């Protein structure tokens, strides 16, 4: 099939807890997908399974036609899945540009001896990776912060930097975990535009988890809804908004199951 990534009846259990149960979803290349659901629905665990942080208890995980279930995270990253985190995980003591440059590590060709003797190959590689980092920073609108420490950036820019870093290994699939969390409306609008631009200009498939429904409904071409670890609905924005199961999951049906968002 032409799927870029696919989960087939993937389940993830922690002891008796069903974090994900029989989840199947397919992502086609070049599209922008949303993954929504109430807190604790198992959205982030899907990201963790896709990126190799957890191995699924059962079922299949395929990326570019290859099974990646249980593969080490750095190997999956090198295959072309990038991600950001719900709680920002930058390298705070490194500069902004160095944060992005760490992401080129796996593409580096110079070895330790090149580094120790500061060979031409090493210098050339450093220069080109700095240049590439600057290009990505320019794309994310962070170029004037290149020499600042990552930890000193305001929150919204840290989120952008995390995306810039995730783009470093040139991923084909980008997973964004609540990219708009903690951002003000202006920053959210900027970010929305950036995600759109990213998907169009770089032709990257994006899957994003988000609680900001306006953002999701605005930009996502296709939406998956999770509740209690299970996929309860998928479809276009309007279909999702009218789906009774989704409404039930978000607003609750009766008092015993009531669960507000």
């Amino acid at each position, binding site marked *: 099939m032409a799927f870029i990534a696919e989960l087939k009846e993937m389940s993830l259990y922690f002891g008796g807890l069903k974090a994900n149960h029989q989840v199947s979803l397919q992502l086609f290349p070049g599209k922008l997908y949303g993954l929504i659901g109430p807190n604790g629905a198992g959205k982030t665990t899907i990201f963790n399974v896709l*990126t190799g*942080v957890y191995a699924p208890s059962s079922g299949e995980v395929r990326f570019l036609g290859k099974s990646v279930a249980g593969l*080490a*995270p*750095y190997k999956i*990253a*090198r295959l072309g899945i*990038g*991600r950001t*985190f719900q709680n920002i*995980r*930058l*390298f*705070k*003591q*490194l*500069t902004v540009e*160095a944060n992005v*440059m*760490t*992401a*080129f*590590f*796996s593409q*580096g060709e*110079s070895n*330790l001896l090149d*580094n*120790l003797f*500061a060979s031409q190959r*090493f210098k050339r*590689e*450093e220069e080109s*990776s700095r240049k590439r980092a600057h290009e990505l920073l320019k794309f994310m609108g962070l170029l004037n912060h290149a020499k600042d420490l990552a930890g000193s950036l305001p929150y919204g820019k840290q989120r952008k930097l995390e995306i810039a*870093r*995730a783009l*470093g*290994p040139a991923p084909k699939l980008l997973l964004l975990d609540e990219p708009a969390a903690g951002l003000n409306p202006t920053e959210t609008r900027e970010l929305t535009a950036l995600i759109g631009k990213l998907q169009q200009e770089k032709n990257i498939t994006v899957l994003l988890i988000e609680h900001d429904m306006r953002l999701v409904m605005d930009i996502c071409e296709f939406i998956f809804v999770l509740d209690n670890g299970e996929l309860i609905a998928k479809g276009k924005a309007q279909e999702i908004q009218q789906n009774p199961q989704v409404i039930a999951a978000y607003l609750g049906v009766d008092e015993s199951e009531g669960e507000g968002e």
Partner: protein
Amino acid sequence: MLAFIAIGCILNMLFTMSFDVLNDFHQISFLKPMREQSLISPYYYSVLLLLGINIILSTSLALLNGFTGLFTMGHAGFMAIGAYTAAYVVKSYLPTAAPMLQLFTALAVGSLSASLFGLCIGFAGLRLSGDYLGMVTLGFSEIIRVSLLNIEAVGGARGMTDIPQFINLGMVTLIALIVIILVKRIRDGRFGRAMFAVKENEMAANLIGINPLEVKVRAFVLSSALAGVAGVCFAFSEGYLSTQTFTFVKSFEIIAMNVIGGLGSLSGAILGGAMLSLLPEVLRKVQDFTGVDIRMVLYALTMILIMILRPKGLLGQKEWKWLSSPN
């Protein structure tokens, strides 16, 4: 490289009475022990020698403890491996060779043997982290020490004597400078960035394609090789090796150098190494002056005061200008 040799010759002139550099270099007396011929008194000579060796040790540990965030308590073990292996090889196989050949053999053997042990412990211990890794490395260095104590071929409990003393103060200074430059280069390159990435957030590093285990093993191998170099400097300048030098007390001293200077800072490691080497000697003067035996009390008090006043070390994360990082 030429610049290094030039610096070495200048240092050699400074520390010895010999100004005939070219002739020196030709006869390689450049490498002869200079303690007795030095312009400075043998006491100061010894202090400066120890200073140089301590700076090499402290800088090498910065790679592990400071940059990669690996807490290790067995650095003296790597130093011992380098010192003993190099001394044994040179004494047994090259007793009459030219000093230059002896020097390069010693450096190669010392750093390679130590890094081999670094590689082993890297693979064995790196699935652990934090305090547990500290414990494993501590145990490992004690195993090395006790083993050496019981190997008759290296002198056993009597220690190893009659090691040719071809490393002088100028040479140690030169080697320390080279080590500092090498560690700086590593820190500033892609491997250094990966080390900092692993230290700050291993999961994030993993998810951008960095294999944390690989980075840690690299750091271990490099760091232990440099500790081995420090061991070589020690062995061939002192001329005598005893396992008493390489107890865990030495390991803790090296950690203290890093912490006092500022963990994660290369300049801090150098400053800390210098501080902890010179402080006891400065305090010796104080003791002579006051006539009271309070040297080690003052030493401990100074360390406590530094940690209270500068909890992140003297330099924190900062670097001196000539060692500043582009990252």
